[in-house]
């Protein structure tokens, strides 16, 4: 069916700059690179302004732990926003789920199975996750099957779950929490230590290299254009270097003297005169966040569910006509959001070692901001999980840095709000140019 009259179109290779050539060879997303660049700029700026306090292992480690809950929820919010919906209720849901998990481990389970039972944390987490899934399913059902706009349903949810959080204990804070459960919040015991951190780092490096090799093999199989070998080696090398550098930073943050002393006494180790260096390693909440990020990226890019989420965001009518069960997909998106709120809630109360009914207040706004700064279009159809997690780190870096500089809390809010608007404006300009 080749029309004889159509001339062969020759694409004249234009003279592109070295940067453009580099980007084309490695196939890196310029927007993501821009965001990483902005993050580095912010880090360096704060480091200089604070007199060398920002880029220290201690601060970066704390930053990673503080970013974890928002980053976890942002991965789910990306999918919600991509389908042209919004979830304003997750902060309140986090508070309610946190209260339920707190009461479960501090009051309910001790009555049933006794204090300090090894299974307490598992049961608590399971109950929290199941409840999160249920609440998400309820909101998702009302949105998808009853056709009420998600803005309204989740606005109602914001009020309902916050009230419910108070109602669990009539406002009373629940503390302390189970010892094992607390590990999910970070702190010296809530980290995996130097050796295991290297193991995790090496596994991650292996995963990067294997994934590059696999994608190259797949392309060869179907005779698709390949990335230049140099680019592949560069990507693999830089990826591994970054991973190992991150692990090294986590391992450079030592336990506080008090914890070291207690550990030495408990394990009958003689303490040398200048103290023992026990590295924190990667924090458990950070590991959870990374795990969630990997799982959500897989879900979004390699499963049918993820494909349908993006298709619905691009053209809901087209998805319907293609036979996609759009209502069930949207309900599942909100169920996922509820599940992630439960995970973030567990980490939040574990860090605090207490469950309060104010936990998570206004968290949804931070999560939405993180997703949008990370490249999710507020109009739907566009967004990546990795970008949202980077957005969460960026926002937390801003707040962290300002605290370090002693900026007043009201001024912090002003700055964060302004940065959000500027970031989205830059994104709009970028999209128009490209």
């Amino acid at each position, binding site marked *: *069916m*080749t*029309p004889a*009259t*159509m001339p*062969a*179109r020759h694409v004249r290779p234009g003279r592109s700059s070295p940067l453009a050539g580099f980007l084309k060879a490695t196939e890196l997303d310029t927007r993501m690179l821009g965001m990483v660049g902005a993050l580095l700029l912010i880090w360096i700026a704060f480091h200089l302004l604070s007199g060398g306090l920002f880029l220290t292992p201690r601060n970066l480690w704390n930053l990673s732990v503080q970013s974890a809950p928002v980053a976890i929820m942002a991965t789910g919010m990306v999918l919600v926003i991509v389908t042209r919906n919004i979830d304003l209720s997750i902060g309140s849901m986090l508070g309610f789920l946190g209260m339920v998990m707190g009461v479960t481990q501090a009051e309910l389970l001790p009555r049933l199975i006794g204090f300090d039972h090894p299974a307490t944390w598992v049961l608590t987490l399971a109950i929290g996750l199941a409840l999160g899934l249920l609440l998400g399913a309820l909101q998702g059902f009302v949105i998808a099957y009853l056709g009420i706009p998600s803005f309204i349903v989740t606005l109602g949810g914001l009020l309902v779950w916050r009230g419910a959080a108070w109602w669990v204990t009539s406002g009373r804070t629940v503390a302390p929490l189970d010892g094992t459960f607390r590990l999910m919040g970070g702190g010296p015991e809530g980290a995996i230590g130097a050796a295991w951190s290297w193991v995790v780092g090496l596994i991650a490096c292996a995963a990067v290299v294997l994934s590059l090799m696999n994608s190259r093999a*797949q*392309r060869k*199989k*179907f005779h*698709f254009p390949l990335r230049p070998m140099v680019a592949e080696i560069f990507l693999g090398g830089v990826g591994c270097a970054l991973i190992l550098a991150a692990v090294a930073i986590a391992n450079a943050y030592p336990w506080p003297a008090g914890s070291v002393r207690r550990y030495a006494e408990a394990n009958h180790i003689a303490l040398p005169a200048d103290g023992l260096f026990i590295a924190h390693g990667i924090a458990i909440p950070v590991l959870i966040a990374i795990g969630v990020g990997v799982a959500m990226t*897989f879900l979004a890019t*390699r*499963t*049918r569910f993820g*494909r349908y989420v*993006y*298709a619905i*965001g*691009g*053209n809901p*009518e*087209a*998805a*319907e*006509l*293609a*036979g*996609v069960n759009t209502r069930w997909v949207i309900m599942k998106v909100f169920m996922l959001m509820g599940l992630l709120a439960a995970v973030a809630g567990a980490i939040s109360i574990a860090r605090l070692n207490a469950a309060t009914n104010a936990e998570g207040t206004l968290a949804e706004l931070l999560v939405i901001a993180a997703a949008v700064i990370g490249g999710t279009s507020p109009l739907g*159809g*566009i967004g990546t999980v990795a970008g949202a997690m980077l957005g969460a780190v960026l926002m937390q870096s801003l707040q962290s840095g300002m605290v370090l500089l002693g900026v007043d809390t009201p001024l912090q809010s002003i700055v964060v709000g302004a940065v959000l608007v500027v970031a989205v404006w830059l994104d709009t300009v970028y999209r128009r140019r490209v």
Partner: protein
Amino acid sequence: MDATRIPLVAMRDVSLAFGGVHAVDRASIDLYDGEVMALVGHNGAGKSTLVKILSGAYQRDDGAIAIRGEAATIANPRDAKKYGIETIYQTLALADNVDTAANLFLGRELRTRWGTLDDVAMEAQARRVMGRLNPHFERFKDPVRALSGGQRQSVAIARAILFNAQILIMDEPTAALGPQETAQVGELIRKLKADGLGIFLISHDIHDVFDLADRICVMKNGRVVGTASTADVTKDDVLGMIILGKCPPAAVPGPGAMAVA
């Protein structure tokens, strides 16, 4: 037409109303394999609605559909696809934010043995089918919104022919195309006709209709005015049917035909 041949599609007395508006009113139409049946009429005549009933996008209120002589239940687009009915919608129904292969396989993705999306296999098939329609098309990784109108139309057409359609519905397939691309679509239709497909063609271009179609069915205000072979009627006859509802002697009149005094 051989009277003993079983029609590929037979829609009898199909009706659909949206509130008080009778979008389709006791419409009957049939389609044989290896033929192109054109569906023409003014805007709002019910042509798109009638074929959307066949493609599963709408559910009829009344009437019967038979595919190859057997009663067919088409409750949603998936059911229609099972009967081998593929549709190229007027609005193209493409998801703008994903790429060509994703659109071609939307709802029918190929999966690896671990259950993940087999993007590589889907792209390979996409290249093959797009190569038949548009050999110079290379932008497989770009989201469909970045393609030109003609390229988007090619994607919509490719999607319809990718899954071995037996009944093809084309709703204004050349509306957004230039003369060269329109000629390509015309060639494709002739080729598919030769392959034995039955094609419903909705078009406002009367020249295209007479060029490509074997039979023509005119609708007016939701009712069928008449059906005729394109060889037996002139363009003026057809215009008379569209505008006045006046059924010429060579056409079989339907419920919408003007009553003969």
